């Protein structure tokens, strides 16, 4: 009868596999090129704040277990439909779309950095996205099955590469340069935004919680340990990079992991890294495409997105979401995401949305502590509301320090601001026309939980139609 199979190691494995993506290596290279080993402090700070956020998410999951829409449903119950659509539906999905585009751009860059094909990098990226659209539309999920293996191959390879570099065992020549180039704390804080990107995604562990043994202990612990393991691996890579790659080259590279592999072990290192990272990119972009379509469908189910996201094709794939994310990724790559500068910029633009959704999640924990103090929670963040508040403030601080250059920071805020305004307009219209509920009035937890049921929308639509008919009838008879 006991269906729960996954132990703590599996929870950690899933967490690590979901958090690490090759686009993280881009941030790692950029951060190291600016601060050297000083970037380790930025990473440690970002990791600590993300650990606190992971604990908050574990508490939210304990309070509202097994929800498919994730952060959106917690916010709907915590802050009402307007904030939910603004930060979770719009913001989170926009962020997913940008992150997916960056990840796919890494594919073309990786190929060209080793093979020098003469073909623009975006052609490879677009071809890969098209292939994955086709596979997802056919309901084929080959890469999802090998995702854990691929992620481990990537993480194992990076750890080994990091160790070789840290211990100075590489066959390439070491570079004479200062290991730490951070002069002050403001330098370190200026890189927090980039460092944050290395640790996002631990919330993706939550959907597997129902199949984890002793979930109240293993889910939060698994999320925290995943983040710590990733930090350890990335520290090794940073130290290795400072020894073997010049900061100028590192900063200019759009595929720093391949550059590092080459500097460390020559062409063997390059081929090793391209093989592993290409597999990882395909696997990540594929699962992002699939999960985007599922997330959109989940949000349509709770009436926060148009119902067309629930449409399925013959192979039971949510094709609208797949086509939208695929289209966005193709457009972003054709427009020119392939240079390292624009990739870093796009990452920064995207993670502001992600950070805002994390802040909102932390505030949700505090709201539920006040509103439902006696509700049983199988996991509760210790020390009252202190840690969620620290996490929210820490994340806000990271947003403020999204880039060390004030001009770049302002452009990031400008783009994010414009997107937020557009989302706010959509949110108001959608709340008035479709949700038909007060903008800031939270929806009771039982109702949000009920929305999970596929019959919820059908039952509520029937009532709406019935009410409209009655209104019309009443209007006629009155007339």
């Amino acid at each position, binding site marked *: 009868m006991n269906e729960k199979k996954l132990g703590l190691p599996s929870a950690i494995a899933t967490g690590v596999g979901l958090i690490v993506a090759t686009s993280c290596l881009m941030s790692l290279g950029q951060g190291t090129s600016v601060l050297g080993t000083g970037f380790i402090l930025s990473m440690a700070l970002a990791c600590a704040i993300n650990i606190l956020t992971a604990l908050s998410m574990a508490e939210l999951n304990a*309070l509202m277990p*097994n929800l498919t829409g994730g952060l959106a449903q917690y916010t709907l119950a915590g802050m009402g439909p307007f904030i939910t659509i603004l930060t979770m539906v719009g913001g989170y999905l926009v962020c997913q779309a940008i992150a997916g585009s960056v990840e796919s751009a890494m594919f073309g860059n990786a190929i060209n950095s080793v093979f020098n094909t003469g073909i623009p990098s975006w052609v490879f990226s677009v071809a890969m996205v098209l292939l994955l659209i086709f596979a997802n539309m056919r309901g084929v999920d080959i890469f999802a099955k090998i995702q854990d293996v691929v992620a481990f191959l990537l993480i194992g390879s990076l750890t080994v590469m990091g160790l070789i570099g840290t211990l100075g065992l590489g066959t390439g020549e070491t570079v004479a340069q200062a290991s730490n180039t951070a002069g002050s704390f403001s330098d370190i804080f200026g890189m927090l935004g980039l460092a944050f990107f290395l640790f996002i995604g631990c919330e993706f562990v939550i959907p597997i919680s129902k199949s984890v043994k002793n979930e109240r202990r293993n889910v939060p612990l698994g999320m925290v340990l995943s983040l710590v393991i990733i930090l350890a691996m990335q520290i090794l890579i940073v130290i290795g990079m400072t020894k073997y790659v010049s900061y100028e080259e590192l900063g200019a590279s759009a595929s720093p992991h391949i550059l590092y592999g080459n500097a460390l072990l020559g062409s063997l290192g390059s081929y090793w890294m391209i093989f592993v990272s290409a597999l990882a990119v395909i696997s990540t972009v594929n699962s992002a495409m699939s999960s985007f379509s599922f997330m959109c469908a989940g949000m349509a189910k709770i009436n926060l997105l148009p119902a067309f996201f629930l449409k399925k094709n013959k192979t039971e794939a949510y094709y609208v979401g797949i086509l939208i994310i695929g289209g966005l990724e193709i457009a972003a790559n054709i427009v020119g995401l392939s240079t390292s500068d624009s990739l870093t910029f796009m990452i920064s633009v995207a993670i502001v949305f992600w950070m805002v959704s994390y802040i909102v999640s932390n505030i949700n924990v505090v709201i539920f502590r006040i509103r439902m103090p006696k509700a*049983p929670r*199988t996991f509760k963040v210790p020390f009252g509301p202190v840690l969620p508040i620290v996490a929210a403030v820490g994340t806000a601080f990271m947003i403020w320090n999204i880039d060390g250059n004030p001009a770049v920071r302002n452009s990031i805020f400008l783009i994010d601001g414009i997107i937020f305004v557009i989302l706010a307009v959509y949110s108001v219209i959608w709340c008035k026309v479709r949700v038909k509920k007060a903008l800031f009035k939270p929806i009771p937890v*039982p109702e949000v*939980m*009920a929305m999970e049921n596929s019959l919820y929308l059908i039952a*509520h639509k029937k009532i709406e139609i019935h009410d409209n008919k009655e209104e019309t009838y009443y209007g006629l008879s009155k007339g």
Partner: protein
Amino acid sequence: MEFLKVEVITSMDKLSSLKTALSKLGVSGMTVLQALGCGVQKGTFEYEAQQNPEMELLPKQLIMIVVEERIIDKVIETIKKELYTGHIGDGKIFVSPLSNIIRVRTGEEGLDALK
């Protein structure tokens, strides 16, 4: 009062995990009855838009245990956490005093009959 009666009315699918958790706490006996019933929602399914005008009885289970007063808080907390899903229909817990317990076979009374 040395011991208390705890009655739990809940849905049909949570018995196994609850049994395991209570065993770990040292609860030594349990009586389970299949029942029909409803609460304040009058048996309305949570996804439905309007409440039933009259009560609809749904399949439930009534779990009865008797525990020592000193562990009652732990027992209640465990039951709450085990039954909690956040959905309507998680159930209710009723705690009431007991004046005595008698084991028929030996004639033992009170706490002795409970152990």
